[in-house]
């Protein structure tokens, strides 16, 4: 099972929690919005990715299983 991270850019308000909790995969641009250099989440980071998803105050960070239908934020 492989997982991908996705940001809903309309919902995102640049709180920056995700980059704080998952710096391995997420960095911030000059205005504080997250940049995902790769959407693929390595298996050993899935737990941390879940934590980052749960911490997002606007529910803008999504963790999707590959092949599953897209979830709406």
């Amino acid at each position, binding site marked *: 099972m492989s997982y991908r991270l996705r940001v809903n850019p309309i919902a*995102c308000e640049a709180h920056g929690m995700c980059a704080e909790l998952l710096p391995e995969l997420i960095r911030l641009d000059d205005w504080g919005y997250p940049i995902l250099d790769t959407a693929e989440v390595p298996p050993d980071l899935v737990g941390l990715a879940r934590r980052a998803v749960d911490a997002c105050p606007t529910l803008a960070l999504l963790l999707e299983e590959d092949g599953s239908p897209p979830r709406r934020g």
Partner: protein
Amino acid sequence: MSTSWQAGHPGLPRLLAGLDPSGAPMTLAEHVRVHGEQPQVRPHELIEAIEHSGLRGRGGADFPTARKLRAVAAARRPSAVVVNGSETEPASAKDQLLLTRTPHMVLDGAMLAATAVGAEEVIVQVRHGSHQAVQALEGAIAVRDFDPVPVSLVEAPPGYVAGEESAVVHHLNGGAGLPTFVPPRPFERGYRRRATLIQNPETLSQLALVARFGEHWYRELGTPADPGSVLVTISGAVAAPGVYEMAFGTPMRDLLAAAGGATEPLRALLVGGYFGTWVEAASGLELRLAREELRSVGCSLGSGVLIALGQSSCGLHESARVIDYLALQSAHQCGPCTHGLRAIADAFGAIASGIAHPRERERVLRWAEDVRGRGACHHPDGAVRFVASSLTVFAAEIEGHRRGRCRAEPVGLPLALAGARR
């Protein structure tokens, strides 16, 4: 702006055949005399003919039309065929031309598509403020007693992003007409939360021709990879700016010749409109109107826009105005687009004025790279593609401007400022 076609090419015009020179819409009788009756085609036969024709969407995304038709036809209870005539690109005039001059061809295509996918209705979204399009379509609809499903007309909200597919659906569903987070895409879940086929007026007109004359006829023009003809809006430093129907594979040099030729030595060509790419005039003139060839130099035809920039104009100043416009036209929903395009536009303005730090160009290019792909829609992607090509093609001018050397006359590339959204 004049509206014409290239008369020199055998087999052309197709879409623009029989246009009334007075500017009036073609009547149903004229339409049938020039093109023949709307044919009866079985749904799967039409979709197969479209697939073999190689027709792709003419709204800018180049998506294979047959794939979209199949996706919607396979859905449970598709709701509508939406003719997306929003044409928010200020340098494009071809959809407006079709809706106002050949409304029956557009409606033929929409009805054939509705039958092919099993949609319950046709909705035409016309350009913001276009009373002519509404008038021409209302006149056409009033005399069509043979259409299988009802048609209604909707006016696009103002602003550049209103023509984006998800924004069209948002508007039809009662929203403000802003892009939404996709997927699901409109062909999966759109108008009334059901599968919706959204097509550009030119795409549907081409479909109506393929339904009449078949895929082999369609492929008689163009190249094997890019068959058929295409409408191109040509403007800038040409003698007769307007909409021209050209065969794919035609060199840019011949496109400009069709528009009366260049009025002065050219500095650059803008291919694809404001989501498009600048190319140096010398190499650009040899480019052929074909997807692969354009892609090899980082271009795409977009919605069919070609602007010629003369040597008496300044590419940096013109680009700065366009970038500022695109930043204003952001829906301001997504942070990277809202903040990124504003910062890029301001920095680009400083570069064009010759007051920027020498390393500002590198910073703008980094921002452009950061912003790409991070909006809900492709507005930021198109804008930064334009920015990157402006900084590349007009690199020599940047140095000149820093030394205060620019005697160019402002030409003012067309910007739809009246409809601007803040």
